């Protein structure tokens, strides 16, 4: 599908110039992001840092004690295992606690995607685009290392990171295939849960990588939509009836999010289940109109939710 581009306005030109974005991006943000000026300001600041306790190795209370004794300033979140790091005396990726696998540096929104999977012990779970392994290792701890997780990663270079994190976190219930998710049916396995954290344009992580303000094009977004469409269609075919598929991206673009789920709902017998956190999904964008159920999907905005930009859809496969 073509990326929606809107006619320039004096305000879109002014904001794009003020915050150093390509105009077409800011113009699109103005269509669907609430309080866009605060949002653009927030994207120029470092994102909130979060760590997730790896309960396969330590509990949150003991981890907090260790980090506080090293001068960290921490804040609890709505999730017991997820801690906001307000201040750290060391880089959080270089402490002994990190090296020993006591925690994973992971955004809150990414943790919510795993929460949405409703993981239970002894299930069979697929993580379709798994590197660097943050969600995979979180799923493993929720399963208490039981059952099995199949993680897919087509890129050998990215594979190194997932193998390291699996080892560091002490995960024993996961295997990794060097495989493009679009070929997952070759495995001939049906899954209780499937997580598709799809490759995307990455608009939601501009605060971490400001090059994204200007270095992607409408055509890049269209390319992502093609991949996302084929990945989600492959994903839904391997979910057991009654099972769950969680689709997520770190993008704000409706074409990569609501539009994908809306198209899916037209071809498959699914139900989009509500989620507790985040803002409602969109039901329209420009001349695109989505099913009312799309409201149940969730958008995460840095200036509202203090997370990276993120999108989550929780999909129950009925038959």
């Amino acid at each position: 599908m073509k990326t929606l581009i809107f006619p320039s306005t004096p305000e879109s030109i002014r904001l794009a110039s003020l915050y150093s974005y390509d105009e077409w991006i800011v113009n699109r943000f103005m269509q669907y992001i609430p309080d866009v000026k605060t949002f653009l300001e927030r994207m120029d600041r470092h994102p909130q840092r979060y760590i997730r306790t790896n309960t396969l190795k330590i509990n949150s209370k003991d981890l907090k004690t260790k980090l506080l004794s090293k001068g960290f300033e921490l804040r609890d979140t709505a999730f017991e295992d997820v801690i906001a790091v307000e201040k750290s005396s060391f880089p959080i990726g270089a402490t002994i606690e990190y090296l020993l696998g006591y925690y994973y540096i992971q955004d809150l929104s990414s943790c919510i995607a795993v929460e949405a999977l409703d993981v239970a012990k002894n299930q069979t779970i697929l993580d379709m685009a798994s590197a660097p392994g943050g969600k995979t290792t979180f799923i493993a701890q929720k399963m208490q290392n039981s059952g099995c997780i199949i993680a897919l990663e087509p890129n050998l270079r990215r594979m190194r990171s997932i193998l390291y994190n699996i080892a560091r976190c002490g995960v024993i219930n996961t295997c990794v295939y060097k495989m493009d998710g679009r070929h997952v049916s070759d495995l001939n396995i049906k899954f209780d849960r499937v997580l598709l954290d799809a490759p995307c344009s990455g608009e939601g992580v501009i605060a971490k990588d400001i090059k994204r303000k200007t270095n992607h094009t409408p055509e890049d977004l269209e390319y992502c939509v093609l991949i996302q469409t084929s990945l989600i269609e492959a994903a839904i075919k391997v979910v057991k009836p009654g099972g769950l598929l969680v689709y997520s991206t770190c993008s704000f673009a409706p074409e990569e999010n609501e539009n994908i789920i809306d198209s899916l709902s037209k071809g498959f017998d699914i139900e989009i289940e509500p989620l507790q956190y985040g803002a409602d999904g969109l039901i329209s964008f420009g001349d695109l109109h989505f099913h009312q159920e799309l409201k149940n999907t969730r958008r995460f905005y840095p200036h509202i939710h203090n997370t990276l930009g993120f999108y989550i859809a929780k999909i129950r496969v009925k038959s």
Partner: protein
Amino acid sequence: MFRKANRQEITILKRAFDKWGVFDFFKEKSLLIKEEDHRVREVYLLSSALETIILSGQPYHAGLKIGELKKNFLLSMQGADIIGRISNKFPYVIVNELAEKLILYGRNVLGQSIVEMTENLNENEVLLLLNINREPIGIGRTKFSGKYLLQKDKSTVATLTDAGHYLRSECQ
């Protein structure tokens, strides 16, 4: 290629687990061997549900590599991490905070850094490097025996691997 351990390999593993006081821990766990070109035999710990899938599907990676089989069973860092936390029968040295940092940069252990160690250690003995919280931070090999390990200003334990190894390799 992942496969089940043969009788000889099981004997080596059981002997090692028994010696290190972790026989019961591993009794109920699945272990598979990954062998490439008949050269390296890696030992992987995995959940029982995973074992069936692996043997039929042959993934790129599965479970947790806990060591390698040669004439004996040699622990990996992850194997050391498990064993160091559930047993105190594996030979060890406990090092001070400064040495902890140095070990995580791949440096060897100086005699004065050792605050506690297993009695009667031999030269060339493989042991766990523990920090003062008794957390496994590396695997080492003694260069001396017994009290000579405590010699000042001498590197007395060589660091074979450590928890900081991967990050250093990524930085390079």
